[in-house]
């Protein structure tokens, strides 16, 4: 018996190909570890560096994000197939938010406010760690709010 859809797929906007959800979680784990390690060592370049890393994946797609590509080429072949796939738009939106906050952090460093810079970086590290370890993706939840306002739906 076919599946009926209620309030679903009402838009003409095509749904992007689903992705392996372990890729973004690997990316978030690397991000959290890098930012926390950078904070411990007071190595400030880690903040703009990972703003660029996130920007590459968010703006151009997973193939261009260094750690997303690392996952796809090195880690995933060693794992079994994913139990499920997910819409790529929420994690990309979350990455874009990370870019904004890390860029703000980098600007704070440049303006001579390291406390603000590290504070913003630690917010990103905490949320990335939360998403990597529990699957709670705050940025993805915010995407839902935005999607509802724009009436964007996904399969």
């Amino acid at each position, binding site marked *: *018996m076919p*599946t*009926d*859809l*209620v*309030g*679903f797929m*009402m838009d003409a906007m095509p749904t992007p190909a*689903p992705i392996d*959800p372990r890729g973004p979680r690997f990316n978030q784990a690397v991000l959290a570890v890098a930012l*926390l390690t950078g*904070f*411990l060592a*007071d190595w400030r370049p880690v903040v703009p560096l990972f703003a660029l890393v996130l920007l590459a994946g968010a703006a151009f797609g997973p193939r261009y994000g260094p750690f997303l590509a690392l996952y796809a080429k090195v880690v995933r072949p060693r794992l079994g197939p994913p*139990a*499920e*796939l*997910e*819409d790529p*738009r*929420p994690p990309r939106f979350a990455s874009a938010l990370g870019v904004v906050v890390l860029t703000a952090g980098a600007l704070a460093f440049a303006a001579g406010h390291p406390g603000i810079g590290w504070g913003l970086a*630690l917010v990103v*590290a*905490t949320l990335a*760690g*939360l998403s990597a*370890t*529990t699957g*709670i993706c705050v940025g*993805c*939840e915010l*995407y*839902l709010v935005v*999607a*509802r306002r724009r009436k*964007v*739906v*996904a*399969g």
Partner: protein
Amino acid sequence: MFVTRAVIVVVILLAVALAGRLYRAWRTRLQDERPAHPLIPASLRAGAHRTWVIFTSPYCATCGPVEARLRASDPAARVVKVDATRETQLADAFSIRSAPTVLLADSDGYVTARLVGAGAVDDHLRQAPVQG
């Protein structure tokens, strides 16, 4: 200075671990809730003997696989997906707070099972295989 930073990092790690525990507890509580459900609307059941209603959301990663498993396990039943972010009145009426939440309705619209999360669906299908 390093010690202060190390303490902050430890606090962050503990906060993440605590949030994870609270999240799992919340999911468990949702699963254990047995709200008084209204009848599943006839428009969703369309006269079917048994109807699975899957409440989804736009970012739900597990809803597609859940739908596939239900269709494979219970081919005689009707399966309906409802976007809870669009059908908000329906979602509120059935106390939907997480996707996927799956309701099983009999031919009269009475909810006979409420499953929160893909794992709960798997457990239900394993423990109570569908009979014809």
